[in-house]
C-alpha cells in the first residue's frame, strides 16, 4: 500500500489549506518557504460569498473568495475556495422590490425597503399583505434564453407570517416551474415544493441574522412564454394579513444556481486560477475535495483542473479532468487522447472526493467518494507514453466551462499511486 509522505507532495490548495497553513496555495506539505509559491487568481468582476459568521461579503475584482459553508453533520462552517464560471443573472431588479418592474398580482400590500440585509446593508424589503380580501403578491418578468431547467435562488427571512412562498411561474402556460413553500417555526424555515409546482429545492443555506437562501431548479421553462418571479409574503389564504422579508432574487440560464448576484453584478465573470507547476510528466496523483455545485452544467466543456494545455485549454500535452455525464480524466499527447472515467453522479452540494492517479506508463484511474462514503474505483484505462514535458508549466483550476466548485482541498503529488484511504490518512496526519 503506497504511503504518501511530505516529499511526495508538489502542491496543496483550497479552503482547508488556508485555514491551516495561512494561504490558499502552498508548496509541498507545508508552508516551508518564506519565498512564497503563489496563485494567480483572476475574475474580471466582483463576486459574493459567505464569511465564517454566516454573513454575506463582497470580493473585489481578482480577489479570491474564502467561502464558508455549513457542514450539515457538524453544524460548523467550513472554509472553501469558491471557484465559479461566468454567470449572467436575469432578474432585472434582484433587490429593489419597490421598482416598477415588480408589479402587484392582486390585493393590497406594502413594500418597505431599508431593511437589514444579509450583507450588512439595508437593501432588504419587508413585504406585507395588508388586505384580508386578497392574496397580495408581487412579480417580475424574467427573460430566459432557451428552454429547459434553470437555476433560481432567493433570500427569505421570517416576518409576522408563518408561511412564505416563492415561485417562478409560467403565466402563459399557467404552470409553476419552481415553487417553494417556507413554513416558519421561531424563525427557522421548513421548506417544501408547492403542490403542483415543478422544480426542486437544492439547498437552504443559513445566513446571518435570520436570513436563509433558498436555491433551486426550475424545470420545464419555456423561454418564449412569460415567466414571472413571484413573491408571496403569506400563505395563499386571502384572509391572511402578515409580512415576510425578502432579498436578492436571482435566476440564470443555467441548470444550477450560483453565488448571489446583486444589481451591480449582472454578469459575474469567469474565475480562473493558475498555479506554477514546473514539473515534468511522471507518475502522479491529484486529489480534489470539493462541493458539487453544478460542474455537470456544460457537459464535456468544463475543466475542473488541468496540467498544461495553455491558457486557452487547447495545448498538448495536457492532462485534465472534465465532466461529461461522469467525471473523467483525459491525457492528451499530440491529439492522442486516453481517458479514465468513474461512474457516479454527485447530487447538488455533495462533498466529492475525486482522486486521479496516473502511472509512469500513462495508465490512469479515477476514484470517487461522496459525502465521506465508500469509494468507488473506476476501471484503469488509457496507457500511453508520457511526454517529455507538458505544453506549459502551469496547473490550472477552473477557468473553463461551467465549473461551480467550492474547493476544500487539492493535493498534487508525484511518484506514488495512493488509494483514497492513503490520501485521507495523509490529510489526517497533516
Amino acid at each position, binding site marked *: 500500500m503506497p504511503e504518501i509522505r*511530505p516529499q511526495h507532495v508538489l502542491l496543496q490548495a483550497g479552503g482547508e489549506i488556508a*485555514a491551516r497553513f*495561512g494561504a490558499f496555495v502552498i508548496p509541498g506539505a*507545508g*508552508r516551508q518557504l518564506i519565498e512564497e509559491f503563489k496563485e494567480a487568481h483572476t475574475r474580471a468582476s466582483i463576486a459574493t460569498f459567505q464569511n465564517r459568521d454566516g454573513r454575506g*461579503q463582497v470580493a473585489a475584482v481578482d480577489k479570491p473568495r474564502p467561502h464558508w459553508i455549513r457542514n450539515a453533520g457538524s453544524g460548523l462552517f467550513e472554509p472553501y475556495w469558491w471557484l465559479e464560471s461566468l454567470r449572467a443573472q436575469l432578474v432585472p431588479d434582484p433587490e429593489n422590490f419597490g421598482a416598477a418592474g415588480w408589479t402587484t398580482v392582486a390585493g393590497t400590500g406594502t413594500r418597505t425597503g431599508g431593511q437589514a440585509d444579509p450583507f*450588512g*446593508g439595508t437593501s432588504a424589503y419587508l413585504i406585507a399583505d395588508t388586505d384580508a380580501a386578497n392574496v397580495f403578491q408581487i412579480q417580475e418578468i424574467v427573460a430566459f434564453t432557451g428552454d429547459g431547467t434553470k437555476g433560481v435562488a432567493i433570500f427569505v427571512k421570517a416576518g409576522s407570517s408563518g408561511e412564505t412562498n416563492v415561485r417562478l411561474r409560467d403565466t402563459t402556460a399557467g404552470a409553476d416551474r419552481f415553487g417553494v413553500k417556507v413554513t416558519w417555526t421561531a424563525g427557522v424555515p421548513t421548506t417544501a415544493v408547492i403542490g403542483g409546482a415543478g422544480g426542486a429545492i437544492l439547498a437552504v443555506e443559513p445566513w446571518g441574522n435570520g436570513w436563509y437562501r433558498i436555491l433551486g431548479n426550475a424545470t420545464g421553462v419555456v423561454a418564449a412564454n412569460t415567466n414571472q418571479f413571484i413573491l408571496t409574503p403569506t400563505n395563499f389564504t386571502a384572509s391572511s394579513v402578515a409580512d415576510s422579508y425578502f432579498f436578492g432574487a436571482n435566476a440564470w440560464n443555467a441548470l444550477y444556481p450560483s453565488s448571489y448576484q446583486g444589481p451591480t453584478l449582472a454578469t459575474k465573470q469567469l474565475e480562473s486560477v493558475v498555479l506554477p507547476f514546473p514539473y515534468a510528466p511522471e507518475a502522479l496523483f491529484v486529489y480534489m475535495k470539493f462541493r458539487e455545485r453544478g460542474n455537470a452544467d456544460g457537459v464535456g466543456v468544463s475543466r475542473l483542473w488541468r496540467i498544461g494545455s495553455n491558457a486557452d485549454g487547447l495545448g498538448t500535452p495536457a492532462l485534465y479532468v472534465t465532466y461529461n455525464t461522469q467525471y473523467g480524466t483525459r491525457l492528451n499527447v499530440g491529439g492522442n487522447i486516453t481517458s479514465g472515467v468513474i461512474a457516479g453522479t454527485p447530487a447538488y452540494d455533495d462533498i466529492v472526493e475525486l482522486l486521479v492517479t496516473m502511472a509512469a506508463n500513462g495508465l490512469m484511474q479515477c476514484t470517487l467518494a461522496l459525502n465521506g462514503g465508500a469509494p468507488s474505483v473506476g476501471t484503469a484505462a488509457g496507457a500511453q507514453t508520457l511526454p517529455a514535458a507538458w505544453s506549459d508549466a502551469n496547473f490550472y483550476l477552473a477557468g473553463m466551462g461551467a465549473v461551480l466548485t467550492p474547493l476544500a482541498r487539492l493535493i498534487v503529488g508525484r511518484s506514488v499511486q495512493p488509494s483514497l484511504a492513503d490520501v485521507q490518512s*495523509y490529510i489526517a496526519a497533516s
Partner: protein
Amino acid sequence: MSDPVLLIENHLSITQFGLHVLTPSEEATGTEAYRVADGRRSPLDRWTGVTLNVEYSLKWAMDRPRAADVIWCDRGYVCPRLILEYSDDNFATPAQAVFDITLPTASMPGSIDSAFGVRTEEGCWIKRFPVRTASYGRIRIPAMGAGLKPSIVGLMVGLSWTPGPLRRPFGPDRNALVVNETPTDSGWLGRGRAVKRREGSLGFMTTSECDYALGRYHIDHFDRGRPMVIVPNDEQAERSFVAVRQPPVHGLSREPSYYYEQGELPYVEWEPRRR
C-alpha cells in the same frame, strides 16, 4: 489545552511580507504607521497621529488572502478600545467584524481565547480569535475623548502555530540578570540598573513528517531573527513574552534515538521591560 502558542507571522510587517501595504487614517512624522511592525519595543517608537478625539484606523492590504487567528499589541499602547475587521473588497462594502473589545486595564490570569484578550505581565495585550481569511485587515480605535489620541508601539496579526507540548525541560521563567557590575576592592559589587531577561530554549519533538513540514515555515521566520511571541501555555496567556533567536547554530534534526525531527531553538527575550 495547556499548549504553547507561537506567533511569528505578522501581516503588518513589510519585512516579512514585502508586498503588503499599510494605510493609516493618519500618521505624524516620526510616528509613522510602519513603526508598529519594525521590531522596536521602545515606547518612543510608535504609531500615532496628530488629531485628537477622532477615530484612528490602520489598514493592511495583503498580496493574497491570508489567514490569521492571533493579535498581539506591544506594551505601551494607548488604546482603550480596539475593533478588528476584515474585508475582501478593500472595505467598500460592510466589513467582516471579528471583535470590538474594550481592552483590560490590568494583567490577570487568562486564556488566550478569553473574550477580552489578556493583558500580559509586562503590559502587552494578546488575543486569539477564530481563524479568518481575507485580503484586507483593519484595526479601528474609536475616538477616545477630548484631548486624547491613541498610540500603538507594536502590533502583530497573523496565523499562530501550536506545535504541541514542548520537550522538557522548558522553563519560560528562566532568566538572566543583565547588569554591569564592578567589584570593589572590599568585595562589594557596584551595579548599574539590572534587567531580568528571559532566556531558554524551545524543545520540539515532532510526531510526524507532516508536523515538521508545517513547523518549518514558522521556524524559518524565527531563524531570520524575527521576533516571536511565545505563549508558554494558552491557558496562561498573561505569561507571554517576545523573543528572538540566539545566534549559534541550531535547528531541528533527526537524532539516533527518535525517528522524526526534534531539537532545540534557543531564544532570548527581546528588549525586556526595564524596571
